[in-house]
C-alpha cells in the first residue's frame, strides 16, 4: 500500500465561528482540494478524510424544502382511487356523484389521458387503468379538490363496475405457457437471459458430489421516509411545470412528454430517500391533466399505504442452484435458474434480470457454468429498481448454497470459499478480466478479526462469512 498523499485539511464546522449568519450555508468545497488520482490498489486520498455535507446545515435547521413543503397560491389537492382488485376488466366508471360534491373541482379517468402508457423501459404501465386492472394498487380515477380531506372523501363516491378476473399470482405458474397472459396477447415471460461457459453436464458427470438447493426471497418496499409527492402547474401557453420527488428528471420528462404530448419542465428538489424507488414517474401525467382541467396548481402526496401498494418494490426471486464439486470442495460446474417475479409492470426489470444473472454464480472461479434467468408478469405490485438491482437476492442464494455444500462435505465454510474465490485477473462469468481482487485477503482478515476458528468454533455467531 502506497503512502497516503498529504491533503489540505479543510476547516470543519466545529472550528467555524458559532454563528448562523453570515454565512448561513456550508462552504462550497467540503472535500480535500488536492485529489491525486490513485494507482491501482493504492488507497485514494479521500479515504479517511472528514467531509461535511453541503446541505447538512439546512437539514438540521428544518429548512430543506421537499416537495410536500412547497405551496402555491390557490393550489388543489389530489387523491387517486385505487382498484383494490388484482385483475379485472373495467366495465364502467361513474364519477358524477364525486364531481357534484362541494369542494371537488375536477375528476379524471384513464380515458382522459392522451397516451395512457408509460414505463422506463417497456411502456406497459397505464397512468390510470382505463380498460383493464393489472394489480390491486392500480389507479382508476384521480380527484382534485380544495382540501385533501374532500378529495379523499370523493374517492368513495366514485363507482367502478368491474368484471373480476382470475389473477396470476405465482411466478412459477406465470412461467408456464398455458397460463393466461397478464398483458395478453403478450407473453408473461418478458425478459430472458442465458450465460453459458464450458460444459456444465460434463462437469457434473466428473464431479464427486452434486448438490442442489432452492432459495426464495420476498418482495421488499423501499420505504423512503418521504412519500411520493408531486405538484403540477399547467400554464396558459400549454407548458407544464412539474415539481416531483424524482431521482432521474430527464428520464421522467421524456416519459411525461410522451404521455401528454406537451412541453414539460421538471423541477426536482431534495429527495427524502430514494433507494431506486424514485427513478420513474408515477402520477405526474394525471396531476398535469388535473391542473390543465382546473387552471390551478395540483399537489398529490401518496399515503404510506399507497407507497406499499402502488410504487415499485424489490423483485422476489426463486433461485435453483445445482453445483458439482470435488471431494475437496473445488467447484467444477454450476447450473442456475432464476425466476424473477416482475409484478404487473416491467419498470427496471430488464436491468435487474441482467445484473442478477451475471452475479448469480458468485465471486468464484467456475469453469463450467449455465445460468438462465426469466422475468415474468404477475398480477402483483410492480417491481423495479432497488439498491443492488437483484444482486442481494442472488448473494443470499449462492452464499447459502456454499454453506450447505461445506456442511455436507464437512469442510470449513471459510476454506471452501478460499478454494474457489476469484484471484487477481480471474474472469467473471461474462469473461470480464477482474482487477484489484482482494476477496481472499478480505475473508482472511475478517475471519481473523472476529475470531473465526473452523466450523462453528468461532466466537461469532457462525454467520459472519
Amino acid at each position, binding site marked *: 500500500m502506497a503512502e497516503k498523499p498529504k491533503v489540505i485539511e479543510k476547516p470543519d464546522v466545529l472550528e467555524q465561528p*458559532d*454563528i*448562523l449568519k453570515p454565512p448561513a450555508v456550508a462552504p462550497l468545497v467540503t472535500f480535500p482540494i488536492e485529489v491525486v488520482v490513485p494507482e491501482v490498489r493504492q488507497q485514494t486520498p479521500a479515504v479517511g478524510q*472528514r467531509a461535511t455535507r453541503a446541505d447538512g446545515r439546512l437539514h*438540521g435547521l*428544518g429548512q430543506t424544502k421537499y416537495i410536500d413543503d412547497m405551496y402555491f397560491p390557490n393550489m388543489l389537492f389530489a387523491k387517486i382511487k385505487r382498484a383494490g382488485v388484482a385483475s379485472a376488466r373495467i366495465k364502467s366508471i361513474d364519477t358524477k356523484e364525486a364531481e357534484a360534491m362541494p369542494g371537488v373541482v375536477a375528476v379524471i379517468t384513464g380515458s382522459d389521458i392522451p397516451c395512457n402508457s408509460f414505463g422506463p423501459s417497456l411502456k406497459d404501465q397505464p397512468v390510470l387503468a382505463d380498460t383493464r386492472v393489472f394489480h390491486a394498487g392500480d389507479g382508476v380515477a384521480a380527484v382534485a379538490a380544495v382540501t385533501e380531506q374532500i378529495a379523499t372523501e370523493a374517492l368513495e363516491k366514485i363507482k367502478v363496475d368491474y368484471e373480476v378476473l382470475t389473477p396470476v399470482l405465482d411466478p412459477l405458474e406465470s412461467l408456464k405457457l398455458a397460463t393466461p397472459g397478464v398483458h395478453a396477447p403478450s407473453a408473461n415471460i418478458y425478459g430472458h437471459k442465458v450465460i453459458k461457459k464450458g460444459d456444465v453436464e460434463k462437469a457434473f458427470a466428473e464431479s464427486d458430489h452434486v448438490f442442489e438447493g432452492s432459495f426464495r426471497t420476498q418482495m421488499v418496499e423501499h420505504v*423512503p421516509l418521504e412519500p411520493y409527492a408531486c405538484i403540477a402547474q399547467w400554464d396558459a401557453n400549454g407548458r407544464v411545470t412539474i415539481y416531483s420527488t424524482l431521482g432521474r428528471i430527464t428520464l421522467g420528462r421524456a416519459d411525461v412528454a410522451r404521455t401528454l404530448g406537451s412541453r414539460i419542465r421538471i423541477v426536482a428538489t431534495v429527495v*427524502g*430517500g430514494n433507494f431506486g424507488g424514485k427513478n420513474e414517474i408515477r402520477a405526474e401525467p394525471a396531476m398535469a391533466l388535473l391542473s390543465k382541467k382546473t387552471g390551478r396548481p395540483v399537489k398529490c402526496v401518496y399515503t404510506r399505504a399507497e407507497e406499499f401498494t402502488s410504487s415499485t418494490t424489490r423483485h422476489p426471486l426463486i433461485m435453483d442452484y445445482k453445483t458439482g464439486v470435488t471431494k475437496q470442495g473445488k467447484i467444477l460446474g454450476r447450473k442456475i435458474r432464476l425466476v424473477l417475479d416482475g409484478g404487473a409492470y416491467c419498470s427496471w426489470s430488464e436491468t435487474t434480470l441482467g445484473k442478477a444473472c451475471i452475479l448469480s454464480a458468485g465471486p468464484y472461479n467456475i469453469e463450467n457454468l449455465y445460468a438462465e434467468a426469466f422475468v415474468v408478469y404477475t398480477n402483483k405490485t410492480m417491481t423495479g429498481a432497488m439498491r443492488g438491482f437483484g444482486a442481494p437476492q442472488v448473494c443470499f442464494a449462492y452464499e447459502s448454497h456454499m454453506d450447505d455444500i461445506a456442511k455436507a462435505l464437512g469442510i470449513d465454510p471459510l476454506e471452501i470459499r478460499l478454494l474457489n474465490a476469484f484471484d487477481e485477473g480471474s474472469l467473471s462469468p461474462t469473461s470480464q478480466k477482474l482487477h484489484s481482487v482482494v476477496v481472499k485477503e478480505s475473508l482472511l482478515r475478517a475471519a481473523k478479526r472476529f475470531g473465526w476458528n473452523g466450523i462453528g468454533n468461532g466466537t461469532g455467531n457462525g454467520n459472519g462469512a
Partner: protein
Amino acid sequence: MANVTLKVNGETRSASVPPETTLLRLLRDQFNLTGAKLGCDVGDCGACTVIVDGQPVNSCLMLVGQVEGREVLTIEGLATADHLHALQKLFEHFGSLQCGFCGPGVILSAKALLDENPDPSTQEIRDALGGNLCRCTGYTKMIEAIKGAACILRGEEVPAVKSA
C-alpha cells in the same frame, strides 16, 4: 370549526381549523412551519416529532383540541437568531443527516432527552430514538452527534472522532 390558541416557538398563535386537524397539519398548513414532516401519518416513523410542554410527541397523532394553551417547540424554534443549537451543529459536523427528512424529528427527540438527562448512555440515546425511523444514514452517526452535543451542553470538549 375549532378555535385554538397555543404557544409555538415562544410566540402565541391562533387558528380556526376543522376539529379533526392534527397538530402536524396545523403547524405545516396554518403556520407554514414545514420542518415537521409527514412520513406515515400513523405515529410509526417519528418524522413529525415536535416537543409539547417538554415532551417529544408525534404531532400527526395529536389533535388541535389537545394542544389548546400548550407550549410547542418545532425545529424552526431550536436555533436562536444568531446561534445553532449544539445538536444542529454536531449533526452537521458528524454528517448525521443524508436526505434529512427524518432529521427534525430525530433532533427534537434528542433535545427532549438531553433536557432530562445531560449525560445519556448509548443505550439511553437508542431508547430515546426508538420512535424515529431513519432509512439513509443509520443511527451510529446520530448517536455520536448526540453524545457530542451533550458534551457541549455540559461545557466540555467534544471528543475527537476516530478516523476510519
